[in-house]
């Protein structure tokens, strides 16, 4: 196996470069922010408000649209129906189109002169320049992550368990909630975390549907465009810190769930 040593060394070197490429800009961000600046920015009401807005709107997008997407993921994994491949492709469209274009599409869909927009107005709900619009934009760009993960999770559940449950007198609804969903839960949880994380980081679609109130990514852009890099860096550092903390907590919760399952 000694013959592999030069190749291993080369791979470690190339891998290290890739890792450095990810870590270096983030480290540079923190190194160029003093602790004083960091805490001053973190306590800035506008910054804190935008981070809080980003957190709760991305959570709302994940819960509202994500939970509604789980049955679709099950259908894609378990049932044969016409245009299934086309539908699977359509679900991935938000991932491949430019997110500013996605924002334009959503804006056209929910603008005040559109059917949805008029219906919303009648119900006292405005999508443009409103958290509800932010939720829509976040959900649009992030929902494929959940659907794909949940579909793969359902597909990985051996059908024999569902067949056995039906044979044991369970209705299809009971089979879904007691067998399919718990056994696919690990993948669904990963998909939910990915959807939330992707929603939190969304800029392009959100900025077009709702510049105000400002989510954290929009605020970072606004500080950069109006005041320059020095003003944007501390906000970016604080937001990245919050994202990392949230992400770590969710991974810990998810891994704790994995352990209890195994």
């Amino acid at each position, binding site marked *: 196996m000694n013959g592999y040593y030069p190749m291993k060394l080369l791979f470690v070197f190339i891998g290290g470069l890739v890792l450095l490429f990810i870590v270096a800009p983030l480290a540079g961000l923190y190194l160029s922010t003093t602790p004083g600046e960091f805490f001053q920015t973190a306590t800035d009401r506008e910054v804190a408000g935008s981070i809080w807005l980003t957190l709760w709107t991305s959570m709302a997008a994940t819960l509202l649209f994500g939970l509604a997407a789980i049955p679709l993921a099950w259908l894609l994994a378990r049932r044969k129906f016409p245009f299934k491949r086309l539908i699977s492709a359509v679900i991935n469209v938000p991932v491949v189109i430019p997110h500013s274009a996605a924002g334009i599409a959503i804006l056209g869909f929910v603008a005040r002169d559109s059917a949805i927009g008029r219906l919303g107005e009648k119900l006292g709900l405005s999508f443009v320049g409103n958290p509800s619009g932010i939720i829509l934009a976040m959900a649009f760009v992030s929902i494929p992550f959940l659907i794909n993960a949940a579909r793969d999770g359902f597909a990985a559940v051996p059908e*024999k368990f569902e067949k056995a449950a039906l*044979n044991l007198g*369970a209705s299809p609804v009971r089979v879904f909630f007691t067998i399919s969903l718990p*056994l696919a839960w690990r993948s669904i949880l990963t998909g939910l975390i990915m959807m939330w994380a992707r929603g939190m980081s969304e800029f392009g679609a959100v900025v077009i549907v709702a510049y105000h109130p400002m989510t954290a990514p929009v605020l970072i852009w606004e500080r950069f465009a109006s005041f320059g890099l020095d003003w944007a860096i501390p906000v970016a550092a604080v937001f990245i810190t919050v994202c990392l903390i949230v992400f770590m907590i969710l991974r810990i919760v998810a891994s704790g769930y994995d352990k209890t399952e195994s």
Partner: protein
Amino acid sequence: MTKLKVRDVSVRLGRFGLNRVNFTAAGGEYFVLLGMSGAGKSVILQIIAGIIPASGGQIFLGGKDISAEKVQNRKVGLVFQDSALFPHMNVFSNIAYPLRSMRPGARGTDSRVRELAQMTGVSHLLDRATSNLSGGEAQRVALARALALEPECLLLDEPLSALDVQTRSEFRRLLRELNRQGQTIVHVTHDYEEAALLAGRIGVMENGTVVQEGSPAEVFQQPGSEFVARFVGIRNFFSGTLTRERGPMCRFRTAGIDIALLSDEPPGEGFVVIRAEDVTIMRNSMPSSAINNFRGAVTGSGPARMGTEIMVDIGVPLAVLVSDDSAGSLGLAEGTTVWVSFKASAIKFIRK
């Protein structure tokens, strides 16, 4: 009275299909479907359970046509080959699953689960995760879970195939006991020993259809086709009692004759199998190392896959396989008196 009737059931699954499968199982009967892998045994069980829809035919359970009945309402408990225990539930929850499905929130679930666990010998495992069970334990839990459904008919898909010899014997005892208590069982297997040991009646499957149905003796001694004869591979199949003489030397007493054999099985009821090719046929008695020597009369002969099969009446009908040349040179016409012999070591005893 007929409990389960499968009438002209057909299905096509890709290149494989079932073609007008027919058989019946009486109430309290132990019916074994015997066939090679790929014969369609598991598919017919899944059709009876409603998991795979049939393209034609009918299934009657207790006289009622259940062909169009929903899976969850059929009341046939299917035990899968690999148990199919729910991995995210412990043993208790697995056994309780059908009870909670049929009567959600009903009292008595706990006591019923414990009763079934006791019956199947898994009381000490109720809190265990299913991933920590041995193959035999998992099959017992799967059996308890299927019984919780109070099935009118229990369907077993090769339940012993993954078990070791000792566990297999214990599980067979459990199945026999259940059947003795009146449980109708349809059991599929590719193992003729399993069929011989458990079946009240046997159906032999070939290429997606049942080609012969009858008691074990009928199927083994009078195979209805060349396939059945070749598949079951045994023509000389006798039931009786084994007694030990000294060491491994035993005697097996069956209707009319005593056979000497070597066996390390404990004495008791069982079957012996003597392969037709292990029997020597002679026109006169000759000394040899074979202990079992019988005088009899030829009752018939016919072509076999390899050679000629001679039937000799020695008190029981005994099939002897000889080459075509030997058959010709010995002149074994019907009624001819002959001697047959076979070694004690050539006989296989199967304990009931």
